Structures are given as structure tokens and as C-alpha cells.
């Protein structure tokens, strides 16, 4: 009978949490498209979308409706199963990252302590790596299934780019793991709340991680897989209607997740610097404050992503590989070794 004593509330709790977080990610991604167009316009002395609703706020909805209404074309020469699987995978892998991210403080709901994190698994960072690596399959399958030369080239580029930059990204994160000594996302944030943000101890690591995050999200200056002017939109060239929408959407979700990750791993997550929020208790509004703080940090990074996109031109392919293998990888290695030495010396004292 003891085995049956399962805490059923946890199912409801997690279910609600998942629903809220997935919805939030989708809404943020939706409005990222709007923000991207607005930021692009502002940086170029234009006004941006302002016709649909006040300040053009309904523009993402209009775009979504437009994408749904478009004719859906599956090329005859494509392998249709993979063709449909491509955008699905891209979307799923983009959304999966959110599972291990601690969104805010633990709150007290009618006597139950509810951590605002879907799963606090003890291999949080590893899980994120796994999911991020899976992200390349959306691009690869889509590019391959299209049966189009441009798409295939773009898919190959995407794959090699992601593999190259994942190495440096992993090594940059390893240095953080040495400081924290735990793979759990919650303890990474907890450590930063106690000892100060990781960006202070790991400025180089942060820079490497940020550049790699740009490459992993296929954002400019590393947007070679979709290079408009050389590959005709790259891997999603043959896609139309909402399948194309899924690809574009997945990209914005990936950008959101990368920003959340940057804020969580290097900028203290939901922590307000120099304020001891833990003393405020476990009220629901403390959770809300923590979540808003995380969102503010995230918005800053999203803006940074866009700001870079509308400033820097695209890398050439050999420059991209040069930067990844011959600059970032040695730098990340050096960063890791130095961090390891410092940690070792300090712990032996």
C-alpha cells in the first residue's frame, strides 16, 4: 500500500507549470518577431509595424493568420514524412529546454512548497546540452527532405556550424561547473545568489558562451544556414504555410531559451543583486518578482541578439570555421584550465 501513496498534487502542479511555461515561451516568441521588426526599424531610422492595432501590437497575430491561410505545398520530389517531421522536431527541441530552467523562487501555495521549475534533475546542464544538440536535426532533416540543392547545402552548413560551436560552448560551461560543483540548474542559481554572479568570475567564459549561443540560434553574424542572398533562405526554402512558420517560430523560441540560459547561468537567474529576497518569505508575489527579474534580464539579452543582428554583417563560411575552431576553442580551453588551477589552489589552502 505504501507504493500507492503517491502525491497526486504534484501531477497537477507540474501540469499547470508546464502549460504556463510553454504558453509563455510561445507568447514571448510571438512578440519577439514584433520586437525584432521594431528594433530593426528603430536602428535604421524607420518606424516599424504600426498599422495592426495600437502601435502595431496585433502584427504577430496577423502574421500568424497569414501563415495559416497560405497554400501548403509539399514538393513531389521530397520525402514527405521527413518533410513534415523537420519543423516538428525544430519546434519540440526548441521548447524542451525550458524543462530544467528555474524560473523563480519556491512559493507557498496553501501550505505546499512549489518550486517554479518543471524538473530539478541532477544533470540539468547536461540535459540542456543534449537538447541543444538535438536542435540541429530540425534543420538537417528539413534541408535533406526538401530535395533541393540550396536546402541541402544550408543543412550541411547548419550541422557543421552547430557541432563546431557546441565544443567551445561546452568548455565555457565546464568552467562554470567547476566553480559551482554541481550540474543542477537550481544550485547554479543558488551559488550565484550566495557568492555573486558568474559573469564576474567568468567574463571570458561568458563572452565565449554568448558568441556560441548566437551561432547555435543561427542568428547573425552566424546565420549561414539561411543566408538569404546566397542560399535563397537556406533550409526552409521549400517550406510554405505554417511549416515555414514553425521553423521561424522555433528560431525565436531558441533565441528566448538561449537568453534565459545566459541570464540563468551567468547573470544570477531570478536574483536581484544586493537584495536578500530569500528573507521576504515564500509568498506568491516574491515568485512573481523573481520571474519578472528573470524576464527583464532575458529581454535585455533578446534585445542584444537583435541589436547585433542589425549591426554586424554575416561571416564568410571559412571565417566562421576559423573563429570556431582556432579562436574560440583554444580560448575556451585556456579559460577552463585557468579556472581549474585557481579552483584547485583555493581549495587546497
Amino acid at each position: 500500500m505504501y507504493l500507492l501513496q503517491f502525491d497526486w498534487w504534484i501531477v497537477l502542479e507540474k501540469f499547470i507549470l508546464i502549460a504556463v511555461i510553454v504558453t509563455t515561451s510561445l507568447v514571448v516568441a510571438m512578440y519577439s518577431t514584433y520586437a525584432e521588426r521594431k528594433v530593426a526599424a528603430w536602428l535604421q531610422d524607420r518606424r516599424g509595424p504600426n498599422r495592426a492595432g495600437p502601435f502595431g501590437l496585433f502584427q504577430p497575430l496577423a502574421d500568424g493568420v497569414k501563415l495559416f491561410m497560405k497554400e501548403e505545398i509539399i514538393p513531389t520530389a521530397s520525402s514527405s514524412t521527413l518533410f513534415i517531421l523537420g519543423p516538428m522536431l525544430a519546434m519540440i527541441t526548441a521548447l524542451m529546454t525550458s524543462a530544467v530552467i528555474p524560473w523563480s523562487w519556491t512559493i507557498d501555495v496553501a501550505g505546499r512548497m512549489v518550486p517554479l521549475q518543471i524538473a530539478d534533475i541532477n544533470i540539468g546542464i547536461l540535459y540542456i546540452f543534449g537538447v541543444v544538440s538535438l536542435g540541429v536535426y530540425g534543420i538537417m532533416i528539413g534541408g535533406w527532405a526538401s530535395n533541393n540543392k540550396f536546402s541541402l547545402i544550408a543543412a550541411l552548413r547548419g550541422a557543421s556550424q552547430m557541432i563546431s560551436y557546441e565544443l567551445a560552448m561546452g568548455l565555457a560551461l565546464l568552467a562554470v561547473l567547476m566553480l559551482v560543483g554541481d550540474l543542477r540548474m537550481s544550485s547554479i542559481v543558488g551559488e550565484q545568489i550566495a557568492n555573486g554572479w558568474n559573469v564576474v568570475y567568468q567574463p571570458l567564459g561568458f563572452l565565449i558562451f554568448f558568441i556560441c549561443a548566437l551561432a547555435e540560434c543561427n542568428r547573425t553574424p552566424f546565420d549561414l544556414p539561411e543566408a538569404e542572398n546566397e542560399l535563397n533562405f537556406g533550409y526552409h526554402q521549400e517550406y510554405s504555410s505554417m511549416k515555414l512558420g514553425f521553423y521561424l517560430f522555433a528560431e525565436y523560441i531558441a533565441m528566448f531559451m538561449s537568453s534565459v540560459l545566459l541570464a540563468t547561468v551567468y547573470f544570477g537567474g531570478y536574483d536581484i543583486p544586493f537584495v536578500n529576497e530569500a528573507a521576504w518569505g515564500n509568498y506568491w508575489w516574491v515568485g512573481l518578482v523573481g520571474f519578472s527579474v528573470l524576464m527583464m534580464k532575458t529581454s535585455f539579452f533578446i534585445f542584444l541578439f537583435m541589436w547585433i543582428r542589425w549591426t554586424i554583417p554575416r561571416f564568410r563560411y571559412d571565417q566562421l570555421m576559423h573563429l570556431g575552431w582556432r579562436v574560440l576553442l583554444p580560448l575556451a580551453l585556456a579559460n577552463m584550465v585557468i579556472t581549474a588551477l585557481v579552483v584547485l589552489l583555493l581549495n587546497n589552502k
Partner: protein
Amino acid sequence: MQLTKRSKQVERKPMTIWEMLYLPSIFKGMAITFSHLFKKRPTINYPEEQRPFSAVFRGLHILNRDEEGREKCTACGLCALACPAEAITMEAAERQSGEEDLYKEEKYAAKYEINMLRCIFCGLCEEACPKDAIYLTQTFAPANYGRKGFIYGKNDLLIPDPNKDPEGFAKAKGELGKEKK
């Protein structure tokens, strides 16, 4: 080889370590784009705001009336003859007794059409008119969904009666003409 004095020799010396870092120049570029966030935008929100035109702007046509509100046009056809784009067509009619308060002279235009898709807004019709009946205003033809909508008839072109609708008359005479639905 120097062909002109304006050409500049491109420097091809190797980059310094500071330049090879790239990051300083990237930050410089980002500072430039960021400064554009606060610049004035030259775009005008068109239907709500309108760009001011000069007094000699040649826009949509109007058919004029005299002070008593009678149509000035006598359908002589000189404007149609002057028109280089052949945009103007008209049909003349004779004034009947009892219509003296509607038309100024014995002959008037029963039908007067300007095809705004053909019109090049050169203003030659205005110059050709011996009766001061046609003028170019400071508005332009608004967008339309069909070609038919751009053929402006007498209803669209005729200026409001100064006695019955002084406000509309002043508006049409001034900067803004009427807008077609």
C-alpha cells in the same frame, strides 16, 4: 596607376593585435546603431499625417464654379485637346431655360471624365482653359481597389457650391480637395 585625384590607395598592411580582436570595432558599430535609436525618423505616418505641399503643387483636378455657384465649364474641349496623356473626355449639352442658375454659359459639360491612371498631372489643361474652369489642387488621388475607381466623373471633380456648402468650397479651394470613396 592614378587615374583621378579622387581615387584612394587602399591600405593593405597587416592588422594589429587590437584590430585582430574585432571586438572593439564591433562595439563601435553597435554604438553607432544604438545612437540611431534616438534619432528623428523621417517617415511620415501617411494617412494620419500629410506632408505639406508647395503652393504650386499639381494634384487632383477640380471643376470650378463662379461666385453664384454656377459651373464655369462650357465643354469647349480645349483641355482635352491640350492633354498630352489623353486622359480627359467630355460630352457637351445645351443649357435649357430655367437652368441659368446652374450653368454660367449657354453650353455646359453633361459628362466630364478624367482618367487618373492616364493623367500625368502636367497642368496643361489648367493652362488651356479659357474660362478658368479647371484647376489642379494640392491633393493626390487616393488608392483604390479597381481601375474603374480612378475614372473621376463630374461628381468627384466639381467643387462644392459656395452658397450651399461654403465650408466644402473653401476646403476644396484651399489645400485639401475631396477624397474619393
